[in-house]
């Protein structure tokens, strides 16, 4: 079917996954309310499975998007393979999150219905954030995602740390949104439009059409994206928010929110500002440099696994920024590929953190992992695989992802970035393997120290899926790479799609 957006109804087709998810979120909310009736009844675990069905339905709708054909890039939402790819990514993260958190929510006596519907709605936000071609829609997607995640961060009301994390995340997030919004205003004033494709036409391939306002607006957008993806120096909220939030939600933030931020970052800059690559490329270059170096050093002394993973996620933002700095089809493809791997391994690692943390997340320090490998071998093996993949060990997805990022960087001539990336990931081995070290080479404090860990069936599914994904992507990355490359190509070749538009 051909989508041309001159008729409003076509937005319904183009937004089908988002519509399905929003409707499902409301359904989940209603079912939860009616199922519980009396408020003392705990939520049924079936809510989680219902949510998963919704994710599946959205995935089907998303697959259906591929049959659509867009003729112009001047619509508010893109209907391209990049969007389909990133949508699948967010759905994957949501599905893993639901599987990981079902047992956790019961154990922490948290509400299922509200939480799962908020997760679905935040995924709607991510899809819009990463899929829109109109800055105000992107902003709304950003806010939809962020507001839902602020709530999720503070969702455990009995936990002071969660409340504190939510407050910090919220205030700083709103603060950075203001800059982002000011950036949109400046671009609007400087170009007269907020449609990415039209902006790119006005800016021109050589960037000569850009004036000071567009440049200033562009860097303010960098601030907003930099905050969401936790690039140094906009990262300061990350360790606090990640440590304070409930562990499954931290995983969701670290994986999905970051992925959405990056996808949108990539789409906006590669679609709207290819002509200004000299400017933003340099900015992203330096952001990547410091974002790779600083957190890797700080993580060396983190004694808490959640905090270590928080710094690790900042470091990974640095690696992804390298791919972004390359700004080629290859760069965007490696970037998409890495996001998938990153989502799998981060959520997987956080799943283990959830399990080991047990009731009230009492066990998140390194010592709690002592001897875990021998007491819970499968869990230990899973965590080791995630850690190795995060470090970039060969035969894991993390390695392939890094190789592709490096390749994109080298091909673009960003050799210093490539060298720093290699060095940074070698440094990162130290803190990732320290956890593995505790698991396998330390005596457990007592014979029954792992006794409280119970792996629910849903969690098992999540862990198996994540491990299988990480390993298979390390050995047979070909298929996904091809998809990523196709998605990336649709992002880069958007210039030819502005046909029919004439500058007013």
């Amino acid at each position, binding site marked *: 079917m051909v989508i041309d957006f001159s008729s*409003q109804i076509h*937005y319904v087709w183009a*937004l089908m996954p988002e519509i399905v998810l*929003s409707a499902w979120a*409301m359904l989940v*909310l209603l079912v939860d309310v009616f199922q519980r009736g009396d*408020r003392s009844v705990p939520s049924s675990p079936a809510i989680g499975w219902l949510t998963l069905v919704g994710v599946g339905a959205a995935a089907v709708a998303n697959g259906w998007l591929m049959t659509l054909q867009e003729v112009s890039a001047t619509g*508010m*939402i893109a209907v391209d393979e990049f969007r389909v790819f990133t949508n699948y990514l967010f759905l994957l993260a949501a599905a893993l999150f639901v599987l990981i958190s079902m047992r956790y929510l019961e154990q922490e*006596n948290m*509400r299922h219905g*509200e*939480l799962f*519907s*908020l997760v679905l*709605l*935040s995924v*709607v*936000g991510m899809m*819009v954030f990463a899929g829109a071609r*109109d800055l*105000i*829609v992107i902003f*709304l*997607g950003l*806010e*939809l995602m962020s*507001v*839902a995640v*602020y*709530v999720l961060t*503070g*969702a455990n*009301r*009995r936990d002071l740390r969660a409340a504190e994390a*939510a407050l910090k995340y919220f205030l700083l997030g709103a603060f950075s949104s203001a800059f982002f919004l*000011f950036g949109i205003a*400046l671009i609007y*004033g*400087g*170009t*007269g439009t907020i449609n990415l494709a039209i902006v790119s036409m006005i800016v021109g391939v050589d960037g000569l059409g850009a*004036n*000071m*306002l567009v*440049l*200033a607006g562009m860097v303010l957008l960098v601030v907003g994206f930099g905050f969401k993806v936790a690039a140094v120096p906009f990262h300061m909220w990350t360790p606090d928010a990640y440590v304070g939030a409930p562990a499954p939600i931290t995983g969701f933030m670290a994986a999905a929110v970051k992925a959405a931020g990056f996808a949108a970052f990539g789409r906006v800059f590669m679609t709207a500002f290819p002509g200004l690559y000299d400017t933003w490329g340099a900015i992203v270059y330096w952001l990547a440099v410091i974002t790779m170096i600083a957190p890797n050093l700080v993580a060396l002394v983190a004694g808490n696994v959640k905090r270590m993973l928080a710094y690790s996620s900042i470091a990974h933002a640095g690696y992804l920024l390298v791919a972004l700095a390359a700004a080629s089809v290859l760069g965007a493809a490696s970037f998409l590929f890495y996001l998938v791997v990153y989502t799998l391994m981060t959520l997987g690692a956080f799943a283990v953190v959830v399990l080991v943390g047990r009731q009230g997340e009492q066990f998140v320090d390194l010592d709690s992992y002592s001897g875990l490998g021998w007491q819970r071998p499968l869990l230990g093996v899973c965590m080791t695989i995630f850690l190795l993949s995060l470090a970039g060990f060969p035969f894991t997805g993390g390695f392939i992802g890094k190789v592709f990022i490096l390749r994109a960087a080298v091909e673009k001539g960003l050799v210093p970035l490539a060298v720093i990336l290699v060095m940074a990931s070698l440094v990162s081995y130290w803190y990732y393997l320290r956890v593995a070290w505790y698991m396998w080479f330390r005596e457990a404090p007592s014979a029954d120290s792992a006794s409280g860990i119970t792996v629910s069936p849903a969690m098992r599914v999540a862990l198996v899926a994540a491990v299988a994904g990480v390993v298979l992507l390390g050995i047979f990355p070909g298929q996904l790479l091809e998809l990523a490359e196709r998605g990336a190509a649709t992002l880069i070749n958007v210039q030819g799609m502005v046909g029919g538009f004439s500058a*007013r």
Partner: protein
Amino acid sequence: MTTLLWYIFAALAIGGGVGMVMGRQPVASLLSLVLTFFSLAAIYILLEAHFIAAVQIIVYAGAIMVLFLFVIMLLNLGHDYRADLRGLAWIVVGSVSAGVIGYMLSRALTTEGAIVDQGGAEMIDAALRNHNAVGAIALPMFRDYVVPFELTAVLLLVAMVGAVLLAKRRV
């Protein structure tokens, strides 16, 4: 005349802003902010954004700020005289950095031909003439921007669920 009015309201807006930042009591800060919002509404009128001006007063000053006031009262912060302003060093450094940002932004704004001129004023005048203040906004909103409009509905749903989830007293 309008220029003079503009300057008066601009001064009030800035004064309200400064008052909010420097105010010792939360309620005083809040009232200063309300003053800014009213002044902005007046400036909107001067800029021929009549409907926006009305919404500014109804939504911002009337709803959002009242919500803030409720919370301040609820938490019993009305008579909280504990000064929460940071020390002089922070104030100086903060003002200087904000000043630098302001300077750089105004520099960007003052470059020759930076702002695209598509004859917005005439278009707005025409829209106001042909439709009314509401219609002038409603047309583009429901014709061109229906997608973001629907999105705001979802956003408000999230906010509602979230606020209930977070602030409800019983677990």
